[in-house]
């Protein structure tokens, strides 16, 4: 049998340990698999929006699982209840595990309260993909957007996530930005938590002026 290594053969997947294992996966294998995924979806749909949605759904499943796994492995079962906490978790830990490095930057949107952006000079998934002119603004980063959405949804912060190309002067290839727009209830919850915090701080006991 080709490739029988020293790895122990487990009877059932449930017996296999959840430990790290080998960190690296062949890039060309992944690129091949991803290109097949995109091509397969291309044959099934008629328009670009549908294709992006399918890639996003595929990413969503990955995101939900990655969240569970990482929470168990790296964070010792502590959950994230803060929005900034979960965002920085995605930005560093998730990116590091999936792509081998942390994301380039995490920014808060200036126009709207509920928008955040993670940008990357070159997304790993887009490295071997060229988009023909007639597909317009299609971005395979929709897969990564799906992963982020999966992680956020799993953590209890529903959001709409999308991937966009942002052209930068001085570079040939545009930068990719993942735009995260949180649902209303998340922002309300965030404001609520902030308000409670301020009320708690303000309620510190002060020496009354009327005490004799």
């Amino acid at each position, binding site marked *: 049998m080709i490739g029988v290594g020293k790895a122990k053969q487990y009877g*059932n997947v*449930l017996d296999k340990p959840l430990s790290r294992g080998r960190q690296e996966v062949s890039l060309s294998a992944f690129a091949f698999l991803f290109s097949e995924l995109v091509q397969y979806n291309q044959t099934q749909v008629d328009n670009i929006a549908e294709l992006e949605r399918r890639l996003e759904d595929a990413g969503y499943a990955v995101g939900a699982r990655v969240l*569970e796994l990482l929470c*168990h492995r790296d964070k010792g079962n*502590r959950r*994230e*209840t803060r929005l900034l906490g979960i965002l920085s978790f995605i930005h560093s830990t998730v990116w590091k595990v999936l792509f081998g490095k942390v994301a380039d930057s995490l920014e808060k949107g200036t126009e709207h309260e509920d928008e955040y952006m993670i940008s990357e000079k070159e997304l790993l998934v887009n490295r071997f993909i060229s988009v023909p002119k007639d597909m317009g603004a299609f971005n395979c980063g929709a897969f990564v957007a799906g992963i982020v959405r999966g992680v956020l949804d799993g*953590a*209890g912060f529903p959001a709409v996530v999308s991937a966009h190309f942002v052209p930068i002067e001085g570079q040939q290839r545009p930068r990719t930005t993942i735009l995260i727009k949180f649902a209303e209830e998340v922002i309300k919850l965030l404001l609520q938590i902030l308000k409670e915090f301020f009320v708690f701080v303000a309620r510190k006991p002060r020496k009354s002026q009327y005490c004799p």
Partner: protein
Amino acid sequence: MATTACFTIVSKNDIPIYEAEVGSAVRQKQEQVHQHQFILHAALDLVQDIAWTTSAMFLKSVDRFNDLTVSHFFSLTNNSIHTRLMLLHDSRNEDGIKNFFQEVHELYIKTLLNPLYLLGSRITSSHFDTRVRALARKYL
């Protein structure tokens, strides 16, 4: 050793995806089984309230009913709509319960790493079932 215990994994929208009566008592009358499920579901509301306030995963005792207590363990990091492990028991063995939850949580993660497993669907693998019961006998 505990005489009665009912363990459930509840997913989105409070749909149970796995249930097991793991008590070592032999006579489990049908009404008792239904009652256990009812108690567990009633405790879900309380869990929802506490959920956002703590970042721990294991909640020792959420609710009491007669002499049975409900313990809770959050799975997918965060609360309201996601998977939770719940145990109804009458033992006082806190550490054992915590270890039990952690082991089952690991099993659950392995189950959901399967890309063909639809998140939130019932867990029907008999191997999973055997493992959970073995763990229950060991820790409870």
